C-alpha cells in the first residue's frame, strides 16, 4: 500500500484548475490554428480571434473564457493507494483556493432554483472516482462551461435506428445548438451502457487528448463518419457559417441491453480546457 496524504491532491487540483483556465491544451491550439488556415470570411475572422485569445490568456494569466465553468474531475485511484482522508473534500479545497486566488468566476449555485445561492467558491466540483490498478492517482480536471453543457443530451434511441441513426442524431443536436455551444466543438459521445453510463462515458470521451482515435477500429470509423457529417452541416465557428463545426469526435462504446441504444452527446466548446496530472 502506498500512503497518500490528501493534501497533495488539494495542491495538485489547485495547480490544474489554474492552468486549465489560462492555458489551452497544445493540441487544441494546433487544431484551432489549422481551422484558421482553411476558413475564409467571417469564419476566418472568428478563428483568428480565438487563436489570439489563447495567446493573450496565456501571456496575461487571464481566463480564456469568463465562464470558468463548473469543475469536473475524473480521479483514477489505484487500488494500492491508502488515502489519508476524503479525496472529494481534498479536491474541493483545491478548487476553492484556485478559484479565489486565480480570480476565476464562481458560477455554482447551491440550489438550482435560488439565484442568490452562489456557493462563493465554485465548489462543489463534480467528481467521478474510478478504481484502477497500481498505486498512482491520475487526476483529469476540466472546467466545464454552461453554454456547451446546455446543448448536450442523453436519449434512449430505438435500436432499429442503427449506426446511421446515431450519426443523424448527433448531427441534429449540433444543428439545433447552432452557435450557442460555441463551435468549433469537440463532441463526446457515449454509446450503450445505461442512461447514466452513457452520459458518464460522453464526458469521459471529452477528456481524451484531442483527435486521438478510439483504439477500436469500428468505433474509430464511426468517429470519422460523425465528424465528416457534422462538418458538412456548415454551422461553422460560433454558428456563423464555415467549414469547421467540430474539431474532433470521440466515441466511448459500452455493452448494453438488447432493447436499448442509449446515446449521450456531450458538447465541449472550443475553449476545451482540461489538464491532467499523476500523483
Amino acid at each position, binding site marked *: 500500500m502506498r500512503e497518500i496524504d490528501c493534501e497533495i491532491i488539494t495542491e495538485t487540483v489547485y495547480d490544474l484548475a489554474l492552468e486549465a483556465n489560462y492555458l489551452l491544451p497544445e493540441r487544441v491550439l494546433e487544431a484551432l490554428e489549422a481551422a484558421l488556415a482553411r476558413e475564409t470570411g467571417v469564419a476566418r*475572422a472568428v478563428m483568428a480571434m*480565438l487563436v489570439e*485569445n489563447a495567446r493573450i490568456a496565456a501571456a496575461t494569466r487571464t*481566463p480564456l473564457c*469568463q465562464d470558468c465553468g463548473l469543475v469536473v474531475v475524473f480521479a483514477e485511484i489505484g487500488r494500492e493507494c491508502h488515502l489519508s482522508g476524503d479525496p472529494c473534500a481534498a479536491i474541493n479545497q483545491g478548487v476553492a483556493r484556485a478559484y479565489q486566488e486565480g480570480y*476565476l468566476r464562481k458560477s455554482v449555485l447551491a440550489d438550482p432554483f435560488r439565484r442568490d445561492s452562489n456557493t462563493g467558491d465554485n465548489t462543489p466540483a463534480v467528481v467521478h472516482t474510478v478504481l484502477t490498478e497500481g498505486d498512482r492517482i491520475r487526476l483529469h480536471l476540466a472546467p466545464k462551461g454552461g453554454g456547451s453543457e446546455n446543448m448536450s443530451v442523453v436519449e434512449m434511441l430505438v435500436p432499429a435506428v442503427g449506426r446511421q441513426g446515431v450519426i443523424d442524431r448527433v448531427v441534429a443536436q449540433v444543428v439545433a445548438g447552432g452557435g*450557442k455551444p460555441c463551435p468549433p466543438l469537440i463532441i463526446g459521445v457515449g454509446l450503450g451502457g445505461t442512461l447514466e453510463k452513457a452520459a458518464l462515458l460522453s464526458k469521459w470521451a471529452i477528456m481524451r487528448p484531442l483527435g486521438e482515435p478510439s483504439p477500436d477500429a469500428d468505433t474509430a470509423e464511426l468517429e470519422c463518419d460523425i465528424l465528416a457529417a457534422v462538418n458538412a452541416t456548415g454551422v461553422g465557428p460560433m454558428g456563423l457559417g464555415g467549414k469547421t463545426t467540430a474539431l474532433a469526435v470521440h466515441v466511448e462504446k459500452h455493452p448494453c441491453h438488447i432493447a436499448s441504444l442509449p446515446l449521450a452527446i456531450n458538447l465541449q466548446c472550443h475553449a476545451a480546457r482540461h489538464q491532467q496530472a499523476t500523483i
Partner: protein
Amino acid sequence: MQLTTPLDKQALAELRAGDAVAITGTVYTARDAAHAKLFELLDAGQELPFELEGQVIYYCGPSPTPPGKAIGSAGPTTAYRMDAFAPRLYALGLAATIGKGDRSRSVREACEEFGAIYLVAVGGAGALLAQRVTAAEVIAYPELGPEAIARLTVAAFPAIVGYDTAGNSIFPADAQHPRG
C-alpha cells in the same frame, strides 16, 4: 464600421447582418438574474438603474477583476436565455444587445419592428475582449456577483451584426426562414 454610444436609429438602419462593427462608449452588462430584476421594476412602474434609450446591453458575467486591471475575462454569454426579455426592452428604446448564438424569431422580429440590432461577439474570446474594456463599474445588484449590472467603458469593442433592422440574420439556420 465604428459605432459610438448612444446609438442613433439612423446609424443602426444602415447596418446589415454580417457587418463587422467596433463599439466605443458605454455598454451595460446584464444576464439572466439582472433581467428578471429589471422586469420586476418595469412591471412595478419603477425607474431602471440606467436609461434604455440608445443604449446597449451586453450579456456578460465577467470573471473577477484582478488588481490593476479594468475587468476580468469578459466574453459574451448565450443570448437565447434572455429572449423573453429582449423584445420589450427594444420596444422601450434599447438600441442593441450583444451576446452569442442564434436567438428566437421574436427577437429578430423585434429588431425589425423597433429599429434595433442584435450583435454577436465571439464566445470564449474573453481575454481578448477584456482588453477592449477600459473601465467597469457595478451600478446595480452587487449581490448577484458576476450577474450584477455593470457599466462598461469600451474602446473599439469588436462585434458582428447578427440581426439587423431589416429582419436579416447572419445565422445559416435562419436562411430557411427569410424575412422581408
